[in-house]
């Protein structure tokens, strides 16, 4: 058995946290890009595109993230791709995030008064220009609180990627726990580290919410 002091445990966990952070950033960025595409489908003029967007969101919000990660991890090799846990984790969380972000932004688009579209059209803007210049900036602005709130959920969700073998904070904790048999300390510290990452964002989301003018 290896001897670990409290500080050894803490140092190793803090080192592993960079992977949790990196995965969160990649998934949030990737989720924003894919989510924008899903948003376009969801609010499109074509009924079948709208249905695809709605189905995509319902699928990812109606099934466990753990199953989505397993499908990514076991499904892609079936199509002939060799996949590392890191790739499966990043792709899985990206798709998961895209569905939530698309749904949050759709709420913002639909909260805008109809007149915003009409005003854009009367200025001679075509559909994409209207979206880019008039609708989306306002929709993003009014949905900042729930988007930050979702970032907290996403950071917490990275813990699940430990199950498909991605070496982030919780997986490192499991390994340390197996070596030290100090689950109370190890998982307690993991909880503290996640709290330190998430709590400021939760407070920031609350502050944004309070500042938001009531409609």
């Amino acid at each position: 058995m290896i001897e670990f002091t409290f500080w050894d445990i803490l140092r190793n966990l803090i080192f592993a946290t960079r992977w949790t952070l990196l995965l969160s950033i990649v998934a949030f960025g990737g989720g924003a890009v894919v989510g924008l595409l899903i948003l376009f489908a969801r609010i499109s003029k074509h009924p079948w595109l709208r249905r695809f967007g709605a189905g995509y969101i319902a699928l990812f919000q109606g099934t466990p993230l753990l199953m989505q990660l397993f499908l990514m991890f076991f499904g892609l090799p079936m199509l002939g791709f060799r996949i590392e846990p890191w790739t499966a984790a990043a792709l899985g969380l990206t798709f998961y995030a895209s569905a939530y972000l698309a749904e949050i932004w759709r709420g913002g688009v639909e909260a805008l008064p109809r007149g915003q579209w009409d005003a854009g059209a009367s200025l001679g803007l075509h559909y994409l220009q209207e979206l880019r210049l008039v609708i989306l900036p306002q929709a993003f602005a009014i949905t900042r609180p729930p988007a930050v709130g979702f970032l907290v959920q996403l950071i917490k969700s990275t813990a699940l990627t430990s199950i498909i073998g991605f070496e982030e904070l919780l997986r490192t904790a499991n390994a340390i726990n197996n070596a030290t048999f100090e689950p109370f300390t190890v998982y307690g510290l993991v909880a503290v580290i996640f709290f330190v990452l998430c709590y400021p964002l939760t407070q920031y989301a609350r502050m944004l919410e309070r500042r938001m003018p009531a409609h």
Partner: protein
Amino acid sequence: MGYSLDFGWLRDAAGAIAHGAAMTLLLIACTTVLGILISILGAAARRGRYSLLRKAVAIYVEVIRNTPFLVQLFFIFFGLPTIGIRLDPIVAAILAMTLNMAAYTTEIVGAGLDAVPRGQSEAALALGLRPRQVFVKIILPQALKVIFPALTSQVVIMMLESAVVSQIAVRELAHEADLLQARTFRSFETYLVVTMIYLGLSMAIRRSLVAGGRRVLGAGVS
């Protein structure tokens, strides 16, 4: 590509999958009842007279909301035995799920209580009802009506999160999937089928809660 999907194993696996789904439903049923009861107490305490209690509930809500459910589960199942509290996996799962759910629903119930106009309790007090009667008979039913959609969503979210209790060997739906794929070597098909069952469960739970809520709480519940 040389890989073809095979669902032939499903015939023999149907019993195991049904058992797992029943366990998932049992877990979420216990969690919903216990979680909502605790959160009503929590929300009342947060608006109550005792500042120490108010602070304790606030800390509990923030700690749960800002840490992953899987870490909470591991802390309870692996961590508590070191201080002498050893729990059966199912008990640990229900405890972790209930504590998690109650933190979120405490905020939801609290928002519902705030949404009931002050005049309602003033009127009830003027009619001679005692404060506890006012809370249970006048304020709470109106609050529940307002927050019913949010509570329904939280139940569905918790049901989906419950998949991770497979990691402490509770034989619910996700754990049955793990066992099946180890036996059949059909990982992708197994997880595909089980994922679709989760989708069906989440839609069924949402629909029946909405229908039940309409019947119990009256019209106006969406």
